[in-house]
């Protein structure tokens, strides 16, 4: 039997692509191994510096917490909305798709200035709102994450026959809530996880809004340490990169397990 072989040109492109991503990482890694005082190779001092820096842990925990809050609010808000649009208002899909593109075209700096001006000058929002990252920042992050969550969920809903599954569930006596929880959600789990981890990646790297709104999150910490301590900044970058990749790996594993049970249903209507 003829074996499938990878074309030599494909190997060349793969190697070039890998190098494009790996060389900067390798360079950052080598840079992070320079001694803190001497600047000479090789020492893990920068990693020790970062791991023992309380600001690293405080900011990374804060950024993770904000990411989780954004994910929860985003999913709670968008899953039922997109479900309803697919089920009852399919004509609104292009409109929502367009709205989801807006955060892509409005730069974060415009967004944060607009938000601050709106809350401070128009609504005269109190400090407990503007001063709390869990309220102000998460609100802004939900807007930023909207396209990522929307397009992931939309693809998930399009891969199942929402109408038939919903009607089958209701016919068996289920309420809307039961249908959503037991039938729809498990079948769009991979899509929801994709949206969630994209959101995680965005919030973990979001600098502009946090900085201009004067919150001290992980990206602002990275920027700060980059000014003061160049080698530890490289170590922190790699550490955060590793954490993000772990998150991506987890979605891959969960998605693969879920994907084995996911089938396309229905023959359209």
């Amino acid at each position: 039997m003829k074996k499938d072989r990878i074309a030599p040109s494909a190997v060349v492109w793969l190697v070039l692509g890998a190098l494009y991503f790996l060389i900067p990482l390798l360079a950052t890694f080598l840079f992070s191994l320079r001694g803190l005082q001497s600047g000479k190779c090789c020492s893990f001092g920068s990693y020790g510096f970062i791991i023992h820096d309380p600001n690293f842990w405080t900011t990374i925990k804060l950024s993770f917490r904000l990411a989780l809050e954004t994910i929860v609010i985003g999913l709670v808000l968008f899953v039922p909305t997109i479900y309803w649009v697919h089920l009852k208002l399919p004509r609104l899909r292009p409109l929502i798709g367009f709205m989801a593109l807006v955060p892509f075209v409005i730069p974060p700096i415009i967004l944060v200035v607009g938000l601050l001006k709106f809350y401070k000058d128009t609504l005269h929002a109190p400090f407990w709102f503007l001063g709390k990252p869990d309220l102000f920042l998460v609100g802004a992050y939900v807007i930023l994450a909207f396209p990522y969550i929307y397009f992931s969920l939309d693809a998930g809903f399009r891969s199942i026959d929402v109408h038939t599954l919903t009607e089958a569930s209701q016919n068996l006596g289920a309420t809307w809530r039961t249908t959503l929880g037991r039938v729809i959600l498990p079948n769009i789990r991979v899509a929801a996880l994709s949206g969630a981890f994209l959101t995680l990646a965005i919030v973990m790297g979001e600098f502009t809004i946090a900085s201009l709104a004067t919150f001290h999150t992980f990206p602002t910490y990275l920027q700060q340490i980059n000014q003061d301590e160049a080698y530890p900044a490289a170590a922190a970058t790699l550490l955060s990169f590793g954490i993000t990749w772990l998150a991506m790996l987890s979605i891959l594993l969960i998605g693969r397990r879920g994907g084995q049970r996911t089938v396309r249903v229905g023959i359209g209507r």
Partner: protein
Amino acid sequence: MAAHVELRELWRSFGAVTALQGINLSLDTAEFVSLLGPSGCGKTTALRLVAGFDQPDSGQILVDGKDLTRVAPNKRDMGMVFQAYSLFPNMTAEQNVEYGLRIRKQPKADRRKRIAELLELVGLGHAGKRYPHQLSGGMQQRVALARALAIEPSVLLLDEPLSALDAKVRVQLREEIRRIQLELGITTIYVTHDQEEALSISDRVAVMYGGKIEQVASPAEMYGNPATPFVAEFIGTMNRLVSAVADDGYVDYGEHRLRVQAAEGLPRGERVLLLVRPETVDIQPAANGESPEGAVTGEVVSHIFLGSTTRVRIEDPSGERGMTADVPPARAETLAIGTRVTATFPPESARLLSLADQPESYAPDPDSQ
């Protein structure tokens, strides 16, 4: 006895399109009624109204005398099998069957017993642990049937459940559906566009067209005595000959005068549609130039081999009139194309439908013969 299920004057419009125009239908307990008709005739709309997935503009749906017209679908106690594969992909066959029972909070032991019984009933006792994607289309529809039956519904609704399956599985499964329905004695409404399917498994068939029920009758009555030209066109193969009543007991089909018992007592000159089943038509080679009374004379123009019979089409020289006959294949071989023949039928076997309310230009649809 009062009807178990009753549809009263159901009307439903979608914008400018009126999908249902005052549907009336009654089903007795344990009766199997099929809604049969072409695409867009309103049969699925009617079923969705019964299931509660849609609301009628007016009219009522009653089950055991109780008005369910505005009751939510999850409170109607009806089981439904859908046209599309509707099993929950995240659940095994067992879990799918169990779903309705869990919602009803039945004890676990009862649930397990019922799941085993039902999967056995549909012949899938061995496949309970499989996920939908590990089952064939036919198996998925069997599980869907078991799932619908698990909740012991008062009415079973089937919306073209076999249309996505291949021909052999379709025949197998429709017989199983009928067997299970008779075994459980459950009132069933079955929607299909396949007349053979409807005629073979139903107690009664309701033929629908243009949002109306044209005729409700037993399969045999429907086949033998179609009540409207549409039913005559839709059910089985039928010679539909636009004729006029001649003398008492005779009709004129063009220049052919034919003896038809049903024409006795009808006013002379009335336009009628003469209905003759191909299996009742006899074809004999015609003597040279002879065109006997009581027969359609013409030439054989086509043979269609159908297995147990061959369908022979004859047409007169004008090409405007003709008949179709089902004859044994061996006999068809003696009637080569171009052979001049006469076609006759027993006068008592033919039916007549008045065309008084049809336009002058009425002509049977040649494609639906």
